[in-house]
């Protein structure tokens, strides 16, 4: 019984490895952590993540946790949130934090870039309407400065406004006074973070990362 189950897990892991590009070892590590977080349950809830003590000091903790339960990040073409995620979903979110493999083509790099930026964009776009409007952006900056006390809250609005102005002016150019910039679309988002090397910056060093496997998974 136990043997057959472990064989099933093995097969499952192989399947996941093929789809996500993680190595079996990495999946094993992440799975171990998943079980630890979910208290050996099949699914993980928000409370499980919120109880991680190290996250307490993170100003954007709520946003990070939300990202795990956001359907858009789970490679499903639907919006909204789920209450609990299984291991597969957990792993799917983690795929956004894989490093770029060596020797990938320009196109792959561009896709990777879009993928990573999309993840960030979705974190900002809380109402899933495809644009980050001023309110949402202000909230992002407020969250970011939420550990800074009162100065943070006072300045957050100004910073968000300045950032929004910057977006508007770089993407639209000159605007007439009666025009209205409704919010940052994903295209705008790509444009303003043009010089931001997200593909080389947004990654986490998963334990014992094996890039050879990664690359196979990628180029399939």
């Amino acid at each position, binding site marked *: 019984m136990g043997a057959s189950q472990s064989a099933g897990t093995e097969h499952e892991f192989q399947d996941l490895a093929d789809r996500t590009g993680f190595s079996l070892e990495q999946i094993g590590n992440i799975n171990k*952590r998943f079980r630890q*977080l979910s208290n050996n349950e099949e699914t993980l809830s928000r409370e499980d*993540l919120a109880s*991680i003590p*190290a*996250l307490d*000091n*993170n*100003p*954007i*903790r709520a946003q*990070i946790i939300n990202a795990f339960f956001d359907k858009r990040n789970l490679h499903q073409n639907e919006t909204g949130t789920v209450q609990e995620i299984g291991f597969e979903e957990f792993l799917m979110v*983690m795929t956004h*934090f894989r490093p*770029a493999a060596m*020797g990938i083509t320009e196109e792959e790099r561009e896709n990777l870039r879009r993928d990573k930026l999309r993840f*960030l964009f979705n*974190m900002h776009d809380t109402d899933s309407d495809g644009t980050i*409007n*001023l309110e949402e952006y202000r909230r*992002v*900056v407020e969250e*970011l*400065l939420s550990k*800074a*006390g009162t*100065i*943070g809250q006072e*300045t957050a609005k*100004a*910073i968000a*406004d*300045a*950032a929004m*102005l*910057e*977006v*508007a*002016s*770089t993407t639209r150019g*000159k*605007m007439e*006074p*009666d025009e*209205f*910039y409704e919010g940052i679309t994903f295209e705008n988002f790509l444009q*303003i*973070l*043009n*010089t*931001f090397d*997200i593909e*080389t*910056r*947004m*990654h*986490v*060093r*998963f*334990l014992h990362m094996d890039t050879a496997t990664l690359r196979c998974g990628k180029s399939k």
Partner: protein
Amino acid sequence: MSVRVVLHSPSGSRSFLERGLLLLVMLIFLEGTALTLGAASSPDISAQDNTGGHEHLDDHQGIAGSNDRTNYTYTKKAFPVLSLDYHHIQVPFEISLWVLLASLMKLGFHLIPRLSSIVPESCLLIVVGLLVGGLIKLAGEEVPPVLDSNLFFLCLLPPIILDAGYFLPIRPFMENIGTILMFAVVGTLWNAFFVGGLLYAVCQIEGTYLSQVELLPCLLFGSIISAVDPVAVLAVFEEIHINELLHILVFGESLLNDAVTVVLYHLFEEYSGAGEVTPMDVVLGVICFLIVSLGGIAVGAIYGILAAFTSRFTSHTRVIEPLFMFVYSYMAYLSAEMFHLSGIMALIACGAVMRPYVEANISHKSHTTVKYFLKMWSSVSETLIFIFLGVATVAGPHAWNWTFVSVTVILCLVSRVIGVVGLTFIINKFRIVKLTTKDQFIVAYGGLRGAIAFSLGYLLDKDLFPMRTMFLTAIITEIFFTVFVQGMTIKPLVDLLAVKKKQEAKRSINEEIHTQFLDHLLTGIEDICGHYGHHHWKDKLNRFNKKYIKKCLIAGERYKEPQLIAFYHKMEFKQAIELVESGGGVKLPSAVPSQVSMQNIQPKKLPPPVAERALPQFTKGREEEIRKILRSNLQKTRQRLRSYNRHTLVADPFEDGWNDFLLKKQRLIELEKKMTEMSNYLTVPGAIPDSPTMCRARLASDPNAFYNIKASSDGVPTIQVDLASPQSPDSVNMLNEFSKEGATGQSLGQREGATGLGQREGADRDEDQGLMMKPAGKGEKGEGGNKNPGLMRCLSDPGPSNEDEEDEPFLP
């Protein structure tokens, strides 16, 4: 008509005063420059004297002096009205000449178009040095030992290294620290032993006439020649604009390999005397390396923290702030050198440690001064070093040995390539962003040698190393080879290989937000993964820094400021400065680019400005007029000067409270909004202004705002809001009188006279107001007091206020 005259007259006198002020500032700066240059080169004097180059001159001078004295006592001669005594000033004069030459050369290269794009500046400077050396030789003089080791290590090198350390991009540096250390330590060791060992092997071959060269001197030579030189790397890499990763790899290596070089140099120098090397010595060497590098960093960090701590208390003596930084850094360097620790690492550590805290503490002007002085010193030093290299080439005795020189050059290239390729192979196993073949090529090719190697070679003892001359010749050849051949070809090669270049975009606020966001996100994901990677530790360190260190080292409340807010303030301030300096006000400040204003992004809660209300808009001319008033008021803030004070340069909001300035700027933005609203008759009650300047601006330009002030300050004489400082009742009376006169419509000239008189009386009593206030005050009182109705008339604005109401508060 009358308004026009009044508006123009203050601006005329202001520009005159401004020019005077400018002249004063320039004089101060010039003086400062001269003094510091003198101070910087003063150890140089002793260095040159020590070398004995001028001993005979001193003797001569002494004799001449005694002769003079005897003449005075015994025979009475006519008093010399004009006499020439060149020796008296010779040393500083010649130093100044060198510096002048270097600066003029630097200037010249950038005036010739296209030249600087083909040939790197360093090459041209060496050529200039060669020419100068040749000229000196032609003139029959002895070429001075310009690139003396003392002079080089104590005067020329520190500014360059401090500049590099202070402006070190910490983030990429720390992200790649492993790779950099690998190249700097293992790579340099490899180079030294490979070059030294193989050179020894070559020397043993019969027929090269080099069999007298032993192994240890060869290894010593190898360790001198193997280190990549920060000065040469900086000079070349700054021109090719390579991407940040490669730049920091090569540059970081050149900085950190200093410790290895120092240890190897001292080890081999020591052992060449002793002869035998035991395993014990190797162990001691490793320990020595750790002490030299870590000790250097510790010394630097201690001085850096001291500098930061000192800068906490300098808020009352702003002018000497930059000096503290320079002196502490120099002390760090000297202290490290005193124990034969790595001075370069000490300087780097000092600069990097003090920077975040010092920047938060010192005033903006001091910060600019620091930046400029560092850049100025380092660029002059760099220029001098290259010129001196050329001169030293002409001067030095040479012992040319074809085999030795060519083998050196070839071995250096080969070992560098093997070292980089081999190390990258290992490093890439651990790196997430791999180094490509192109990257490896640039890293290998960018390994330029420079003046540090020459100076180390120059330091060698002639008696211990009979082949010193040959070594020096080989070192110079290697330097010339790397600087000329590699330095000149690296730029075309970078283009040819299409290596990723540096993006020249300025940092935008969005990028800063996302940098912060990403940091927290990655830390969070690492925490969720349960993997304590470097994001986790970085976050821990950051919080520790914020909680304890910043509190101790940063004065006031600013230590609480998160990085994002600091960045935002910096950006905003820069824009404010740009705005004012560009003649400001034409486009009023919106926080970022001016094409889009706040209303474009503001969600429309209020009904938007509707066009169909068809109310009279301002014509262009009137708008211009209002803007002019705004502008002149903005400039007045800058002009306010307290009486001359040795400890403060210009005491105005620009100096200390730039937060005040930001506040004012924000008000201006509000004002701008109000201006647009005014044209639509949407009167928004403004906040009660507390800054006199803004009051003036409001009063002068915005009748509606004036209205608000009046309403809020009922019973208080309005004149108090109007002026920069409280007036005595006497002058208020005076003004009341004149405002009555104004109401009755007196002639302009009389009004002007009255205003001037009143102001003079006020100024006499009011010390704080200072000299510069007078003309400004005259104008502003005119605008604020009785010219306002005039302005109103001129604008023919059918606003809600009328003249009678306007004058009411002035009546007793």
